[in-house]
C-alpha cells in the first residue's frame, strides 16, 4: 500500500529523490528567476517608495521561508520523536542552515530597505526583533547538532530543543509586541484583508514566493541526501575497520 511513510526508508527516499531533485531544482531556478526578473524589471516604481519597493520580491519570500523552515523542522522533529524515522531527523538537520540563511536574507534586505525608508538600518521593532530572536534560535539549534558526536543522541536532543524552542520563540514574539510599538507595516499579504498591494506587485511576488519555496524544498532534499550519504560512508568506514 502506498503511504507517505514509505519515504521514511532511506533507500526509497534516495531512489525517489534521484529523479525528483533535478526536477525541483530546475523548477526552483526557473520560477525564482521569473519572479525576480519580473519583479525587478517589469513592475512600475512605487509612487512614494520609488524603486526601493522592489526589494519586497526578496524580502517577503525569504521571511516567509525563514518561518516555514522552522515549522518544517518542528514537524520533522515530531516525526522523529514519535516514529523514529532517520530521514526525518536528517531533513530537520538539513533545513536548519537554510532557514538561518533565509532569516539573514530577510534581515539584510529589510535593513537595506529600511535605511532610505525609515532612515535607519535597524529599529527595535517587534517584527525585526522577533526575527533576530529567530536567528538566535537557529544558531543554537545548529550549534547543538554539531556539538554532539552520536547521531541518534544529537537527533533526539535537537528535536527536544526544537519543540521547547518553538514555544519560547512564539512567547518571545508576543513579548516583543508587548515590549515595543512597531514601525514595520502590518502584513502586506493576508488571506482575509482586502487588497493592500496592487496586482502589478502581487503577481510577481507570488511567483517569487513559490520560487523560494521550491528553492527550499530542493535544498532540503539535497541536504538530506548528503546527510544520508555521509551516514552511509561512516558505516562503511566502520565496517572496513571491523574487517581489518
Amino acid at each position, binding site marked *: 500500500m502506498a503511504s507517505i511513510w514509505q519515504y521514511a526508508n532511506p533507500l526509497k527516499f534516495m531512489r525517489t529523490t534521484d529523479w525528483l531533485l533535478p526536477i525541483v531544482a530546475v523548477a526552483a531556478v526557473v520560477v525564482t528567476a521569473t519572479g525576480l526578473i519580473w519583479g525587478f524589471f517589469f513592475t512600475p516604481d512605487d509612487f512614494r517608495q520609488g524603486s526601493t519597493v522592489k526589494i519586497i520580491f526578496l524580502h517577503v519570500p525569504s521571511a516567509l521561508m525563514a518561518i516555514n523552515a522552522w515549522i518544517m523542522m518542528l514537524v520533522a522533529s515530531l516525526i522523529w520523536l514519535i516514529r523514529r524515522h532517520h530521514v526525518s531527523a536528517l531533513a530537520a538537520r538539513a533545513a536548519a542552515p537554510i532557514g538561518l540563511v533565509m532569516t539573514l536574507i530577510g534581515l539584510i534586505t529589510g535593513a537595506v530597505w529600511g535605511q532610505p525608508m525609515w532612515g535607519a538600518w535597524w529599529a527595535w521593532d517587534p517584527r525585526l526583533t522577533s526575527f533576530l*530572536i529567530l536567528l*538566535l*534560535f537557529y*544558531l*543554537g539549534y545548529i*550549534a*547543538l547538532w554539531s*556539538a*554532539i558526536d552520536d547521531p541518534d*543522541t544529537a537527533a*533526539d*536532543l535537537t528535536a*527536544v*530543543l526544537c*519543540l*521547547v*524552542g518553538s514555544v*519560547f*520563540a512564539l*512567547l*518571545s514574539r*508576543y*513579548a*516583543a509586541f*508587548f*515590549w515595543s510599538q512597531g514601525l514595520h507595516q502590518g502584513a502586506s499579504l493576508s488571506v482575509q484583508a482586502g487588497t493592500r498591494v496592487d496586482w502589478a506587485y502581487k503577481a510577481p511576488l507570488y511567483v517569487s514566493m513559490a520560487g523560494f519555496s521550491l528553492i527550499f524544498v530542493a535544498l532540503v532534499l539535497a541536504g538530506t541526501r548528503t546527510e544520508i550519504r555521509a551516514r552511509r560512508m561512516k558505516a562503511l568506514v566502520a565496517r572496513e575497520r571491523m574487517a581489518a
Partner: protein
Amino acid sequence: MSALLTRDLRLAMRAGGGFGLGLAFFLILAVLVPLGVGPEQATLALIAPGILWVGALLACLLSLDRIFALDYEDGSLDLLATAPVPLEAVVSIKALAHWLTTGLPLVLISPVLGLLLHLPPSAYGWLILSLALGTPALSVIGTFGAALTVGLKRGGLLLSLLVLPLYIPTLVFGAEVVSRGAQGLDISTALALLGGITAGAVAILPFASALVIRINLR
C-alpha cells in the same frame, strides 16, 4: 527528595565558588555599568530596571553548568536516574536548589544594587516582586539547558547560546514590570504574563529536562 535537596544545597555552600560567585558577578555588573555609562542620575534611573534584570539573567547563567556536571562525572546522575524517585522530581529538586542558591540571593540583594543605580523608590517593591516571580523560571529553563549539554566536554559556551534565547520572554516581562512600576504605570498585565511564564515553565520543563537526561545517559 529532601535529602537530595539538602545534599545539593550543602554542596553548593561548601564546595566553594558556586554560591557566592553569582552574587559577586551581579555586584560587579552594577558597579561597572555606571562606570561605563556615566554617573548622571537620570540616565542610570532610566536604565536601572533593564540592567538589573540582565544582570540577574547572566548571574543565573554562570552557575548553570554546575547543576548536573559534577553528578554526571562521578556517576551519581546514573544512580539518581535509576533511583525509585522519578527523574522529573530529581530535576525539579535540582532546579529548586539552583534557585535557592542563586535566584533567591539575587532577589534579596537586588534592592541594594537598585540603590547603586538610582532606581526610583517607587520601583523597589516591583523589582523584588518581579525578580521573585521571574527567577524560578530562569532556574527551570537553565536546568533544561544544563540537561541538554550535560554529556558535552565543553558545554559552557553552547549552554549560554541555547539558554539565553529562552530567557527572552522572562526578561522582557520582568524588566517591563520594573520600568512601568518606576514610572507609576499599570503593571498588572506584565506581572500576570511573567507569572504565567514561570508557572508554565515550572509545570512543563522538568519533563523535558528529564527526557533529555535519559537520552544523554543512554
